[in-house]
């Protein structure tokens, strides 16, 4: 099955149709969870990346900040995932031709790859290599902020 028929099938699925026909309030709740999830991911990412840049909570070690913020990031990812499915499923075919939608997921894929490889490796060290720390922070912040901006742009880019 190619991608577009999948999006159509998703939109026409029983669960997606029932979400689409449900109370307007559910859409509002999904929006609220989506932005809460965004903040729960981006605030810790910002805190740790500032620390990698030598700013913010400099009296704490990078691994200490990572350990403290990881539960927030995981909670945020759960919020984002479920609210995101809830938002896309009822109008999947509408999102399909939107370039901002695809850009968002490309950036998200890159952000997650960096998060679980480079970022994880660099932040595991008490004293990461200075240059590598700066590069990691810049790349990570650019990708995560990019995901947020592309997400907001979905509403502007005419399908």
């Amino acid at each position, binding site marked *: 099955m190619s991608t577009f028929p999948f999006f159509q099938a998703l939109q026409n699925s029983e669960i997606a149709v029932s979400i689409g026909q449900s109370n307007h309030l559910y*859409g*509002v709740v999904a*929006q*609220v969870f989506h*932005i*809460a999830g965004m*903040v729960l991911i*981006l*605030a*810790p990412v*910002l*805190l740790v990346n*500032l620390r990698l840049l030598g*700013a*913010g*909570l*400099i*009296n*704490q070690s990078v691994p*200490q*900040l990572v350990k*403290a913020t990881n539960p927030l990031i995981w909670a945020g990812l759960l919020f984002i995932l479920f609210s995101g499915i809830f938002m896309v499923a009822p109008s999947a075919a509408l999102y399909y031709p939107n370039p901002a939608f695809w850009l968002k997921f490309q950036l998200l894929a890159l952000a997650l790859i960096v998060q679980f490889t480079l970022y994880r490796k660099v932040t595991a060290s008490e004293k990461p290599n200075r240059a590598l720390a700066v590069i990691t922070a810049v790349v990570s912040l650019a990708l995560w*902020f990019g995901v*947020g*901006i592309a997400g*907001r*742009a979905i*509403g*502007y880019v005419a399908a």
Partner: protein
Amino acid sequence: MTPTDFLQQLQDSTLGVALSESIYMYPVVEGLHLISLVFSFGLILLTDLRLIGFFLPTVPVHDVLQKLRPWLIGGFVVTFITGFLLVFVNGPSLMNTWVFPLKLLLILIAGLNAVWFEIKFGRRVTEWGYHAKSPQGAKIAGWISLATWSLVVICGRLIPYLNGH
């Protein structure tokens, strides 16, 4: 002059018209509003969680407050400026629902709470900040801040959703 008249004047001003006529300005301003929100709301959220005792309990409160303050305030400056510009563009339609007036009220409450915290606890934070557990009043201020700013962001997200722009 009613709030609606005032918002109409802002929208009809040179700045309001210029912002509306540019294809790129509105998304750029809204993008900046979103990014700066991570600095302002995101960092105040972490600070509130420390005050309440849920986050980094072994780190002194004054360390968190002082080290994050420049980033947090920088974030708030950009959030407020871009928010002000968004008001110029959206104009009277902001009064279509109760969401925008409620958001302004919540910002006022959050601001007053921050001032109250600063006067009552912030000035002598080095006396109590080493403890994982904050004084009762500081903890309450943390909860009020967390609740009001969260509601501000929720209201903000609902404006384009409920008011239709």
